[in-house]
Every structure is written in C-alpha cells, then in structure tokens.
C-alpha cells in the first residue's frame, strides 16, 4: 500500500502545491489522499539538514562539521519540530479563540509544508558562495525572502482551512508571535533588572 502510494508519485503534489498554490495544498491535505501528516515531517528534517549545510558553507568549516552532520542534525530537527508544534498549537488556539473549529493535525501539516520553500536557500546561497559575490548579504536577503514566502503559505493555508479572508487569517497567524514577543520581552527585562541588581549589590 505504502509502496504503491510512493510509486504513484501523488505525494509530490503536496510539495508542488506548497510552492505554487497553498490553497490547493490545504484542500489536498483535507482530502488525505494520501494522508500527508507523516510525510510532512520529512520537510523539517530536510530543512534542518540544509540549514546546517548553509551555515557550514557560510562559515568556517571545522572538524565540528562532522558532528553537526550527525547528532547536531538530530538536535536541530528536534528543535525545529518543537518550534512547529508550539507555534501551530498557538495558532490553532488563537483560531478557536476567534470561534473557528480547531484542527491541530491539519495545522501541523500546513506548518510543515510552509517551510518547504526555505529548502531552496541552499542552492540559491550556494550559487553566491561559489562565485563569492556578497554571500553574507544574499544569505540574509534570501532568508528574509523565504521567511515571507513561509508566512504567505501558512496564512493562505489558515485562510482556506477556516474559509476566511487573508487579513483575518494573518491576524490569527501573527497574534501568537506578538504574544511570544511580549512574554520574552518582559522576561528579558525582569532578568536584566534582577541580574543588574544582583551583580551591583
């Protein structure tokens, strides 16, 4: 069954629609033909590996590279999945807060496929690294570009999921980020105040 699904190459449609038509991607996710949930976790795994490769190409290669390629990759992957699970959960909770029906399984799948374009950072950055033309600048530039692309896919996925307009789904997407930002800011301020007070005491 699994072998037949792989041979059919229908699973590649998810990747194709992730970059060409995020709304169609969500419709395919909902159809579950095939169920893309497990498949979607291949993307953070590959993205973690590619992140390490990009950073190794950008930085100074050391013997540590070999460690990064083994357990380092697993740690980055676990961290990436952790981030995705937390953020997807917060987005799902926010959607429920606005009165929409929650579906964490689909939300996670959308989140995973949203990071797919980020994988293209490797070939694009590699090109500039090989010709040695402002690789640092293009690393930052394309990182921002691919992040915007990630947001666009995720927001359109939410929009299609709850049948709402882009603006409202963007609010649902951005609210958890604002919440996390405020919490981290307050914690940092408190830690800095406590730290300075303790050190200067």
């Amino acid at each position, binding site marked *: 069954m699994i072998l037949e699904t792989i041979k059919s190459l229908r699973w590649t449609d998810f990747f194709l629609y992730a970059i060409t038509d995020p709304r169609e991607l969500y419709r395919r996710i909902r159809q579950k033909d095939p169920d893309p949930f497990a498949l979607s976790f291949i993307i953070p795994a590959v993205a973690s590996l590619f992140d390490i490769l990009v950073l190794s*190409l950008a930085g100074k290669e050391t*013997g540590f590279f070999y460690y990064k390629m083994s357990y380092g990759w697993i740690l980055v992957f676990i961290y990436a999945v952790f981030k995705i699970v937390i953020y997807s959960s917060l987005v799902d909770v926010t959607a429920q807060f606005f009165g929409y029906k929650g579906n964490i399984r689909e939300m996670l799948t959308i989140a995973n496929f949203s990071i797919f374009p980020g994988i293209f950072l490797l070939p694009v950055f590699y090109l500039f690294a090989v010709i040695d033309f402002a690789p640092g600048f293009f690393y930052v530039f394309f990182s921002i570009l691919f992040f915007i692309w990630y947001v666009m896919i995720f927001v359109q996925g939410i929009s299609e999921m709850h049948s709402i307009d882009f603006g409202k789904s963007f609010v649902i997407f951005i609210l958890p980020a604002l919440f996390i930002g405020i919490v981290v800011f307050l914690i940092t301020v408190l830690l800095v105040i406590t*730290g*300075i007070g303790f*050190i200067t005491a």
Partner: protein
Amino acid sequence: MVAILALLAIIAVIAVVDIGLKIEKKTKSDIKMSLPEFGPGVGIVRVEGAIEMSGTGSPFGVPRGAEAVIKRLSEIERDSSIKAVVLRINSPGGTVAATQEIYEKLWKLRKKNIILVASMGDVAASGGYYIASACNFIVANYGTITGSIGVIAYSPNLKRLFDKFGIQMNVIKSGKYKDILATHRDMTPEERSLLQEMIDLSYNKFIRDIALGRNMNQEDIRPIADGRVMNGETALKNKLIDQLGTFEDAILKAKELAALDADAPVYEQNDSPFQEILGSIKNIFQGEMGLGSELFHNTDKIEYRYMQ
C-alpha cells in the same frame, strides 16, 4: 516536481562533499578535534591583577581575587592527574594577608611533591614575586618587571586642604590609635613608629619566605630587597629567578621537572563563559577596568605591592 526534489538532493550531496573537501585541505592541526584531554599533566593557575581577598563580593558566590587562586590550587591538590603546576603571574602584588595565603597554599602543594613553576608576565613584583618564590623554579621574560621586595602603607595627608576649606572632623574613638592613618591630621611619631614596626615585621617575613622558597640566605637577599624593581635579566643575575623564558618555556620546564612527556596534557584554568560574562559586567559597574584603576583603592592597607 520529482526532478526538483532530485536536484535538491544532488545539491545537498555536492555541498556535503564540498565542505568535506575543504576540511581535508586544512592541516591536521587546524581541524584538531577538541576532545577532552586526560592523563598526567600540567595544571595552569593564573594570578592576574592586584592580589586581594575579594571573594564574597562576586556574583553568584563565584570566588574572585586571592580566593579564586586558592580554590584553583585546591582543585589541583585534589586532582591526582596534575603532577606539575605553572603559576602564571601578572601582578604588582597586593595585600599582605592575601599574598601570604596564596604563598602558604603553594607551599602545601610543594610539600606534596607537586612541581611548581612560576612564569612571570608583564609584572610580577612585590607580592607577585612573593608568591613566585614559593615555586620550585621561576621563569621570567627579559622585560618582566619584578623585584620591588618590600612593604608599603600610605595615606594622603589632607590636613592643609581641610584647613583651607575650614573643615573639621569630629572623631570619637575608644583608643588613641583608633584613627591611625587618618587623613585629616598629621601622623604622630608614636603612630609612625607603630606602623613602622608592623611594616618591618611584614618585611622580615617577606625576606624569610623568599629565602625559604629560593633556598638562599636572608643576608644575600637583603641588599636587593630595598624596594627596587628590576627586569628579568637583572633578576637572573641576582638569583631571584632561575631562567629567562616564555610561558611555553615554563610549561616545558614543568613537564621536565615532573618527568612528564613533552606532549603531556596541559589543564588550563577554564572559567565558564557565564562566569566570565558576570565578572566582566561586575567590573564595568564597579569601574574595575584594569590594574591601574585599582591603584587608588588601597589606602589604609599594608601591602606587598609595586607602586606604578
């Protein structure tokens, strides 16, 4: 889509091979893995800046100053794999008690047959030399400032300044010497005599300890123990040090004296990055940016210190 995915996989493989080849091109030492070293080796202890007891004021109870040095020496004492110690000194000296505590701790290690080699940096004068003298062997650079064997106590006399501004101090004291070294009046002959006696006792102890550590006669040390500073070369002529050389030479000497292999591990004194950050922040807030800024903090103290 399959073609794109296949292309991505090929690019990833090329990147891995590319990075691997770049690493291979480097020399063996450049890609040396930072594996933990073990086995009999040399421990490094660093004495930097003025020697003072300043342990309790440190963030999160991390010892600083002389207490940090003593803590490091205690760790070495417990560590059976450390057969020799290189004491890297870059200090103009400091308070009498703190210096003597480090000296005594070093003697304890020396009695346990742990080889001690002192390596002098820019300055290892007065109290800095005092602690070096506890070592079996002393290495200094040509340009190291050392010597300054002596004891000093000072306080500014601001009486005339106070008079000029019409400031008078109300002093209520339990004994006539309670405000000894007071800045608002002249020092009395009795007070000067009392302090001189204390200074002389500390000085004699200094000479005795150097003689003991260097295995010399006190009479041979006294002629040059008049507070004079000297460079490494002159110190060698006066037998205050054993060899001119660098920090690396000191490590090699320590290995030689402890009958260790030349490639025996060197256990560096590693403060955690967290400790270093906290220490730096504390120094910034307290204005302790270096040795120079501490020069005017030492009034009302009796010190083995080279006054720069």
